[in-house]
């Protein structure tokens, strides 16, 4: 991890990627840049004082587990948002992936690995279609993925016959989310972290990542520089779709069933996590660590309010206000840093 000359575009006034020397200095730089991290710490400290039951391993592991699905969705969406696009189909797409996993494993009784890969590829296929519609047919991402959101929602219901598919018969499936490869850490959380590292590497070390930022900064200039932006956009949406597919498998494993009516609303939560993490909807800047922190902020906040038994109807008000404050202080700090 020594040679870490990262172009990971965190934000700062104009998102200048400074060369980083080591993993720790990299982390420090990232964290300093991100006031989101401070928000997270403030929330953790606050809830720890507010409720003695908050900072227990069981609850923290519960928070991490509840971050897994939204977090995985948010990771994939980070790529799309950095290109200046958006993906509204991740929520119901995840559901369709879960349903297809159910069809493969329960109805067709395929081997575990095959079913899981099938579910993930379902997500990838949806991402590919989104990418095709956006890059080749040149539909606006918002509308192309909104349509896909509706289609996936409908198909999930149709394919499942409007009933849940239970995985109880599939040995080992549940362990994908709830087993423990690392003692004490549910596999779903492990998957989230592994995918985060993968996403980080993809975004900051590979051509895919470079072109993701380049397309988000100025697609036409990138195209004229000889980058086949259409191809790369399809690749990027497909990658996002694969993350959606993994999220589908994980939520299926966690609920031990594919619930075909689930999914709407998850997309906004994931997008909110990405933006709270400092990725710009205008494209060209963003970071994986930020997204992870954004997703954690959301789930810590929700969990903390529940632990404090705040009335359900007040919870959304508080979440809304905290989002405003978090994003505002972050914007303020950036402006300070810029001047």
């Amino acid at each position, binding site marked *: 991890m020594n040679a870490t000359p990262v172009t990971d575009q965190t934000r700062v006034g104009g998102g200048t990627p400074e060369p980083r020397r080591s993993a720790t200095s990299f982390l420090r730089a990232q964290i300093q840049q991100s006031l989101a991290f401070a928000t997270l710490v403030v929330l953790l400290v606050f809830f720890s004082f507010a409720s003695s039951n908050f900072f227990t391993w069981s609850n923290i592991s*519960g928070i991490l587990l509840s971050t897994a699905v939204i977090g995985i969705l948010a990771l994939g969406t980070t790529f799309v948002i950095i290109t200046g696009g958006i993906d509204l189909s991740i929520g119901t797409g995840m559901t369709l992936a879960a349903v297809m996993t159910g069809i493969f494993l329960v109805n067709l009784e395929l081997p575990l690995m095959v079913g899981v890969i099938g579910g993930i590829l379902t997500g990838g296929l949806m991402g590919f279609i989104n990418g095709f519609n956006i890059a080749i047919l040149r539909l606006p991402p918002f509308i192309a993925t909104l349509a896909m959101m509706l289609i996936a929602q409908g198909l999930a219901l149709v394919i499942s016959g409007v009933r849940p598919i239970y995985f109880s018969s599939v040995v080992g499936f549940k362990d994908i989310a709830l087993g423990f490869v690392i003692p004490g850490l549910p596999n779903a959380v492990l998957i989230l972290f592994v995918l985060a590292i993968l996403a980080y590497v993809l975004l900051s070390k590979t051509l895919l990542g470079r072109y993701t930022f380049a397309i988000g900064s100025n697609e036409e200039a990138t195209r004229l520089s000889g980058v086949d932006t259409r191809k790369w956009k399809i690749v990027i949406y497909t990658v996002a779709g694969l993350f959606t597919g993994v999220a589908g498998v994980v939520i299926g494993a966690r609920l031990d069933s594919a619930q075909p*009516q689930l999914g709407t609303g998850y997309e906004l939560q994931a997008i909110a996590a990405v933006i709270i993490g400092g990725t710009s909807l205008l494209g060209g800047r963003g970071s994986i660590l930020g997204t992870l922190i954004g997703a954690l902020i959301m789930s810590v906040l929700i969990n903390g309010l*529940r632990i404090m*038994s705040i009335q359900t109807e007040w919870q959304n008000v508080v979440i809304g206000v905290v989002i405003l404050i978090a994003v505002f202080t972050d914007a303020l700090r950036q402006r300070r840093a810029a001047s």
Partner: protein
Amino acid sequence: SAGGSDAGDAAADTDKPYIALVSKGFQHQFWQAVKSGAESKAAELGVTVTFDGPASETEVDSQLQMLQAAIDKKPDAIGYAALDPEACVSLMDAAKTASIPVVQFDAGCNSDYPLSIAKTDSLGAGALAADHMAELIGGKGEVAIVGHSQINSTGVERRDGFVEQMEAEYPDITIVDIQYGDGDHLKSADIAKAMIAAHPDLKGLYGTNEGSAIGIVNAVGELGLDAGELTVIGFDSGQAQIDAITNGLMAGAITQNPIGIGEATVQAAFDAINGETPEKVIDTGYFWFDKTNMEDAEIAAVLYK
């Protein structure tokens, strides 16, 4: 999936009577069971039914549009489950003007026009859940509720029936928290876990519909609690709840008779088409089921998977 919904204009072409059912939802297992009851009764009586409902039970407005569209289809009768008792009144007048008889199921509209309603006494069902909860935890301790809606009538009544019964009959039991997970399994699981973390002495959890109940079961499973360490009481049936009861994670659940609701609704509509007056209120009943009585014929008949 099951036939019968290929009606619409097709129905107009045949001589079969056509009944349009406008439900509160269609995605949940409960509504699918109502639908299947309605469809089997329709097959038996030789009528055609269609079954429509909004994606979520908050969508009062789009349900009204569905009802409007149902009236415009000029069916022989309409079966309706009101999401809101007031908002539907003007469309009942429209149905009256069009001389389409209306029967109701699950929840009624504040209008004189509909002929009948087939439903469950949700307050009573909630109270029955409270009785069993009290018995199972020994009459004292902390319990909490994971609700599925704090506003629509079934959510409110199943909660209130439970709460009122506890307050009236079991003074040593305190309800320490009520939160709502929209019937979303994942959300309900996370809520249940937070409640268990926040209240280490919690004795029991009550989930007011299938999604809430299964969310609780998932939470208990994820926390690795032993079967019976925390008393879980659910509502409605479905494969997952039946499994949870079988393996002891859930003590038992209240079930309504959704298949019976579907059947009774179509029967009432059929009667109305034939000029007979159906019974004003058809109580389709509710039942407590657990490991001991799940196999009984009477209970098995109202469970759905």
